[in-house]
Structures are given as structure tokens and as C-alpha cells.
């Protein structure tokens, strides 16, 4: 159960952190704010999940211990969310691939037999529904936009496609969470997730990349080099000044 909660929280925290790197750098003020809003939603979701995980762990653990005092191999996020921002198209493609998964995931999590998880999912689902709406809109605009924007978003999907598989392939703790009636059966949402991706790609007049070899490992703590750099920046304060608080 603990691993499962950390997996959900880590996905949101790391992607939220990545998006926050856009703050002040967005292509336009309106887009900058939209990305920052999504980032804050995700970090808020991560906080709720860490707080819950910390209570279950007991021992005086807090959300900060979980976010700031674990090292790379202990993080359970998928590899997709730690990938670099790249250009705007790359960020949109990464976010869209995550949002399609995240939306149907949270929708199913509302049915969890763990009342706390179900309540958090219900709250998150409203936020994620907007994220998905926003990124879908941008995939379509970029794909069906100029020659330049189309080339960039197409390349972004090409580059990130192999990170898609991990989202829908359960780790052991996910299978156990399903068996316990608290987790989401990824097999049950696979078709809906893929259908949404394909529909939006079609509408964006983009070519669907071919499924080939897929990355795996993030869910069990084998991460790309990027996560180390993210944690170095994110955890610096707590590591350098233990227990520092506002």
C-alpha cells in the first residue's frame, strides 16, 4: 500500500516540479500561468497523497520526509514525468501522454474501497479533467497549426512514445493494490487511454508513432539520470538545512 501511494504521489510531484521550471519562461503570459496552475494542482495532489502515506507509516513521519529525504532509487514515479521540458511542444506532448493516463486513472480510483483514496481521487479528477482538456487543445493547435509547430509536436511524440508503455504496465505493488480492492486495474483503463490519445492525434492531423520497445523501470526505482538532478535542486534546502521550516 505504501509503495502504491508513493507511486501516485511521486508521479504528481516530479511532473509538477518539471512544469514549475516553466514559471516565468512560458511562451506567453497566459500559457505561463496555465502551466503554473497545472503544476500547483499536481504538487497539491502529491501533498495530499504524501500526508496520507506519512500517517500510514506512523513513526512521526511527515510529508516532507517523503518528498525531501528519499533518494533516487526510492522514488516510484514513471520515467515519462522526469524527462526534460525541451521546447513547448515537447512539454505539451509529455503532459498530454500523462494526462490521458491520469484522467482515467483518477476516474477509476474514485471507486477505490479505501475511502481516503477515493475522496482524494474525486477532488483530483476535477483538476485533471481540465489538464487533459488544456493539453488536448494544444496538441490539436500545434499539430494542425503551422509547418513548424506540426514538425515540433510530431517529433515530440516520436521521442516520448516509448515512455508510454510504462504508464499502463503494472508493477507488483499495483497488482497487489488491485487485489486488495484499493487500486486501479490498468488493464481496465488501457483501451480508454489509448482511444483518447489516438482521437486527439487524429484530430491534430498527426501520425501515430509505431509501438516498439518501451522504457520501464521508474516504477521500481530504476530511473534515468534526470531524476538525480531534479532531486538535487528540489531537496537541496532540506538536505543542507535539515528541518528548516518557513
Amino acid at each position, binding site marked *: 500500500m505504501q509503495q502504491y501511494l508513493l507511486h501516485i504521489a511521486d508521479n504528481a510531484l516530479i511532473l509538477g516540479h518539471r512544469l514549475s521550471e516553466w514559471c516565468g519562461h512560458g511562451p*506567453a*503570459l*497566459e500559457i505561463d*500561468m496555465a502551466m503554473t496552475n497545472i503544476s500547483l494542482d499536481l504538487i497539491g495532489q502529491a501533498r495530499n497523497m504524501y500526508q496520507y502515506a506519512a500517517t500510514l507509516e506512523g513513526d512521526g513521519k511527515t510529508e516532507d520526509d517523503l518528498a525531501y529525504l528519499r533518494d533516487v532509487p526510492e522514488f516510484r514515479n514513471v520515467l515519462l514525468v522526469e524527462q526534460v521540458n525541451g521546447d513547448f511542444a515537447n512539454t505539451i506532448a509529455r503532459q498530454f501522454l500523462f494526462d490521458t493516463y491520469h484522467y482515467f486513472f483518477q476516474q477509476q480510483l474514485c471507486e477505490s474501497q479505501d475511502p481516503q483514496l477515493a475522496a482524494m481521487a474525486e477532488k483530483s479528477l476535477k483538476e485533471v479533467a481540465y489538464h487533459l482538456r488544456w493539453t488536448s*487543445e494544444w496538441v490539436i493547435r500545434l499539430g494542425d497549426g503551422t509547418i513548424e509547430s506540426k514538425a515540433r509536436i510530431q517529433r515530440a511524440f516520436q521521442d516520448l512514445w516509448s515512455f508510454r508503455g510504462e504508464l499502463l504496465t503494472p508493477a507488483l505493488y499495483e497488482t497487489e493494490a488491485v487485489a486488495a480492492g484499493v487500486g486501479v486495474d490498468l488493464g481496465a483503463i488501457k483501451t480508454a487511454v489509448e482511444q483518447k490519445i489516438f482521437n486527439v492525434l487524429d484530430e491534430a492531423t498527426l501520425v501515430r508513432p509505431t509501438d516498439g520497445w518501451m522504457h520501464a523501470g521508474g516504477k521500481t526505482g530504476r530511473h534515468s539520470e534526470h531524476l538525480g538532478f531534479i532531486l538535487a535542486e528540489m531537496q537541496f534546502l532540506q538536505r543542507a538545512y535539515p528541518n528548516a521550516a518557513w
Partner: protein
Amino acid sequence: MNTEFPLWEVFIRSHGGLQHKHVGSLHAVDATMALENARDVYTRRQEGVSIWVVPSNAITASDPADSDAFFEPAKDKIYRHPTFYQVPDNVKHM
């Protein structure tokens, strides 16, 4: 070539039953994007329950040079103000 997105004016209704009020403007390529941008820029702190967006160039504004002719004549017509009535306490938003 003008590469800036067109300008839109944003109106927000803060509570059911109140009118939409002008809150500012933003750039967007079309109405859908304008609505989403308005949501992201102007309703982050629960400012509203409804949004209108209007292309700025659809607004016809009075010319400041006409101010005298437009607005001065109303100045000395105090009898047009309903200040001689008692407003009952339970009438809101007056």
C-alpha cells in the same frame, strides 16, 4: 506581419445573480483559447462562476474628446438621482 494573438476582453460573474464585470484583457487566437486563458489568468482565486470573453475589436468606445458633450449635461440634473426614496433594508445590490 503582426504575430501577436488578437486581444480579448474578459468579464467575470462573481456570484450567481450578479452581473458580469469587466476584469481585464488577454491574448488568444480564438474564443475557445480565450475562455481557457481567462480561466487560468482571472479565476485562480475563486473570482467567478461564469466567464464571458469578447473580441476587443468588437467594442465601440466613446471618444474622450466627446466627453463634454456626452457627460457634462448630466451634471446639474440632480433630480434624476433616486435619492429621495427610502430603499427597504432587504433590497440588495442597489
